[in-house]
């Protein structure tokens, strides 16, 4: 059964007011909330069960040697990328594919910039300074949580590149369907950015 025969792939369902893709994306994001929620809960539990002194003690803000300036810049990059993501969707809604693809491209570029900052200005220098995954529980969690977030960013980039390239063929046959897909991508991307907005103060700022 191909998707075009199924109802509500494009048009919203009268009760939920959502088309199936958007509904599915929200459910997926709910499970993502649980996934990241589990990591944050682990962070809290491990932090409060850590001994107050000794090698296993939780590092204070100064002992972490994380660059909050770079991370702050990265936060700015992600906030801007969310804005461009919405602009891409708006352009498509205004029936302008070229502009939509351009904004999608900008979003993907910003996401890549985020990753580049993360890898070259944070991960690699840190690792060489000896703050590896086995350094402490804090750094283990730091790499795990930011790494998982990074994987989500990579996933987002791949999806965007797909919709700029081969995925955009859908526009010719069904522009509304294509716009809907971009909206779903936008929902995902906003979620990824929100995760970072929570991660940033937790890992970089709070003591």
């Amino acid at each position, binding site marked *: 059964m191909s998707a075009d025969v199924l109802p509500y792939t494009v048009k*919203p369902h009268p009760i939920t*007011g*959502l088309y199936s893709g*958007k509904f599915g994306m*929200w459910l997926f994001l709910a499970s993502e909330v649980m996934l990241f929620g589990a990591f944050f809960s682990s962070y809290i539990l491990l932090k409060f069960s850590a001994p107050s002194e000794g090698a296993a003690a939780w590092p204070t803000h100064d002992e972490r040697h994380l660059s909050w*300036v770079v991370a*702050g810049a990265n*936060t*700015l990059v992600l*906030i801007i990328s*969310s*804005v461009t993501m*919405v602009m891409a*969707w*708006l352009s498509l*809604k205004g029936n302008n594919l070229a502009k939509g693809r351009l904004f999608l491209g900008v979003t993907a570029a910003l996401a890549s910039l985020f990753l580049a900052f993360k890898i070259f200005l944070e991960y690699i220098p840190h690792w060489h300074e000896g703050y590896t995954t086995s350094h402490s529980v804090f750094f283990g969690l730091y790499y795990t949580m930011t790494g998982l977030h990074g994987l989500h960013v990579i996933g987002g980039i791949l999806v965007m590149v797909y919709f700029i390239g081969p995925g955009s063929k859908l526009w010719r046959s069904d522009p509304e369907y294509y716009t809907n897909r971009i*909206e779903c991508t*936008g*929902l995902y991307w*906003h979620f990824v*950015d*929100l995760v970072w*907005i929570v991660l*940033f*103060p937790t890992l970089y*700022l709070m003591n």
Partner: protein
Amino acid sequence: MSLKAFHVVFVIVSSLLTAGFGLWAIRQWSVRGDFVSGMVGIGSFVGCAVLLWYGRWFLRKLKGVSWL
């Protein structure tokens, strides 16, 4: 909830973050007195203002789009 609604939530959370980050950086500056902290703090407050202004613009522009 459409992308419009989620974007509004996002802008609100972002402006809260920038405001909080600004306060944090200013406090850091008051303790250490370093130039970077102070500048980042001011920049962050400016960012917060920009976000709020942008949010208002966004709401006006998307009056016709559904929240669902």
